[in-house]
């Protein structure tokens, strides 16, 4: 019988090896999904091909996947900044909501402002609102030593209820027959689409912000301090790094990025604020950030893949009548196998000698 032993690697696995592990993990999750499809009475080959066709197989599909990846990417970029410092911000959902609220406030208050002033103002307010919402748990953590996981999670519910309060109350469109939604935004408050595509300019925002975050961690001192403190808090404190201030900084950045996503979703996609804007991107972001090991470029890839999966599953439902829950199962499998595969970055299996 073959018996295995786990030993630590001398050097972490290189790029080639990591890619191999990742691809193996993805194939494994797809294989299990195929078996499930087969058990459910659907042809697995047809099923997987419909899934890919629906996600990336045509221009429309690709546009849809990218469109859905935009808010996921920004939220994931945000949580990744906090995760670098090992600050577990589970609150992207709430910060996203606050961003949408902030942007909507500006859009409803100054609908006639020209676009080049109104949009930046909306972005600014969205970032401020999301950033402040992120700052609160950071302050509570420092002053009252609360756990940021619990506080950020709880604040999501507060944020969503606050959003409900606004759209069911003071911001409710008087012409909506009592349904919860704000009036539609003016033309100037809407982020448009790129040329003749279905994708909005938010994609460009993502590219710019992703690059900025990349450079921030690569080339700035504060970025280095965050990484160093994340790797070893004690050593960082001993070296005199301003750990508490870094915690506040990453939470504000994290919240501001999620807030930006909220702005884009309200402005570009929904064109108003309504409760259905909240579909859990803030939670998906955590999955994406982990899958991507917190690296901005990988976050982009993971966001598009996960968005594509969600889009593709709709085709799977429509063409082959596979239940909606199947998408959640594949997503869970991918997360499980990829994270489990992460073990091989620092460890390896060796056959046990007798």
């Amino acid at each position, binding site marked *: 019988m073959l018996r295995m032993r786990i030993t630590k690697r001398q050097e972490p696995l290189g790029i080639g090896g990591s890619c191999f592990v990742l691809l193996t993990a993805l194939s494994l999750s797809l294989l299990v999904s195929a078996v499930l499809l087969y058990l459910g009475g659907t042809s697995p080959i047809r099923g997987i091909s419909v899934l890919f066709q629906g996600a990336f197989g045509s221009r429309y599909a690709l546009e849809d996947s990218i469109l859905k990846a935009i808010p996921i990417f920004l939220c994931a970029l945000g949580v990744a900044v906090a995760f670098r410092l090992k600050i577990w911000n589970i609150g992207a959902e709430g910060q996203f909501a606050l961003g949408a609220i902030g942007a909507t406030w500006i859009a409803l208050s100054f609908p006639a402002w020209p676009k080049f002033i109104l949009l930046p103002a909306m972005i600014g307010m969205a970032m401020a609102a999301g950033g402040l919402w992120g700052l609160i748990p950071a302050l509570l953590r420092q002053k009252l030593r609360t756990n940021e996981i619990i506080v950020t999670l709880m604040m999501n519910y507060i944020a969503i209820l606050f959003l409900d309060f606004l759209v069911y109350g003071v911001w409710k469109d008087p012409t909506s*027959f009592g349904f919860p939604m704000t009036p539609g935004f003016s033309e100037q408050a809407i982020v448009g689409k790129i040329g003749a595509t279905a994708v909005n300019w938010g994609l460009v925002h993502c590219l710019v912000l992703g690059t900025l975050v990349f450079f921030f961690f690569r080339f700035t001192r504060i970025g280095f301090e965050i990484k160093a403190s994340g790797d070893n808090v004690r050593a960082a404190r001993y070296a005199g790094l301003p750990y508490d201030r870094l915690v506040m900084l990453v939470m504000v950045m994290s919240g501001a990025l999620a807030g930006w996503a909220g702005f884009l979703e309200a402005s570009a*996609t929904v064109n108003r604020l309504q409760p259905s804007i909240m579909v859990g991107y803030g939670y998906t972001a955590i999955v994406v950030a982990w899958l991507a090991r917190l690296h901005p470029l990988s976050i982009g890839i993971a966001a598009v893949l996960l968005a594509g999966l969600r889009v593709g599953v709709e085709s799977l439902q429509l*063409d082959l009548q596979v239940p*909606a829950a199947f998408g959640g199962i594949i997503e869970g499998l991918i997360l499980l196998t990829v994270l489990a595969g992460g073990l091989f970055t620092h460890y390896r299996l060796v056959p046990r000698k007798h």
Partner: protein
Amino acid sequence: MRVWKALLAVLLIGAVNTAYGADKEMKVGFVYVSPIGDAGYSYSHDKGRQAIEALPGVTTSYVEAVPEGPDSERVMQNMARKEFDIIFATSFGYMDPMLKVAKQFPKTVFMHCSGFKTAENMGNYFGRMYQARYLSGMVAGAMTKGNVLGYVAAFPIPEVIRGINAFTLGVKSVNPNATVRVVWTKTWYDPATEKEAAKSLLDVGADVIAQHQDSPGPQEAAQEKGVYSIGYNSDMATFAPKAHLTAPVWNWAPYYTKVVEDVRKGTWKSEAAWPGMADGVVDLAPFGPMVPKDVQDKVNAEKAKIVAGTQKIFVGPIKDQNGEVKIADGVVATDPELLGMTWFVEGVVGTTK
């Protein structure tokens, strides 16, 4: 000139339709807000879908558990691109996305359930569920012992508020002392939350639980406590046989069949349809064995009046929670008033926020 062109087009379409009419293969798509296994709202729409699937020359498909908002826009676009002839979207939040998609695909017929916007190729429809709710309220009012009724409700939107009001009017018509306590869950479909909400009502002494949700969660809570319940959407008797008094139910098959046939014949026109009990779209599920004969007879008599059109339910004088008269004596509330209802009638305990 334009008129003539349009007329010519209509004639041409008519000619094509008579030539191929009966043979034209119809593809019909449905967008549901919850899984069809919810035994409730989406389940009842899916019953309607199955009925038209059984028609010759009709194929159907659906996408379930589609979040309201941008996701639904994509799902409907996808259906339209795959050349579905008719797309039914069955939740309120699909309205604006559907309007956008309808503009992009002028040849596809779009049908939105429960909203208020229409376009040339987009109709809206819903059923006068409040009629059946009134009847279920009569049953609940007759069966309560403590005069406190619980109502688990999804969102404070006019559809739900109207249902609660109709239910309460039904309760008061047989039992003027009873009150209806409302708890909002802020979700259409979350069986655990719905059940918890029902328990909170049981804790304040409610002995009949009614609901406006997509699952039978509240029914189960009532059964566990040993009190009665009023279901919704479909006959929920199997989920809580000891508790289930009756349920206002949907029966979409006749309406969906009509729409499909109209589109096939080319006689479909965009409209805001609001059929009721007389059209068979809404009904009351069979009574549970615990409902006494005299109560059943009384409710059935009232049902006959609704079908005949002599019982309109929202007939003044009707006061709101503050005792202010909202519908004056002898006045029948208009459809726009009903569709935009945002206040509770006297006898409801709870807020519309």
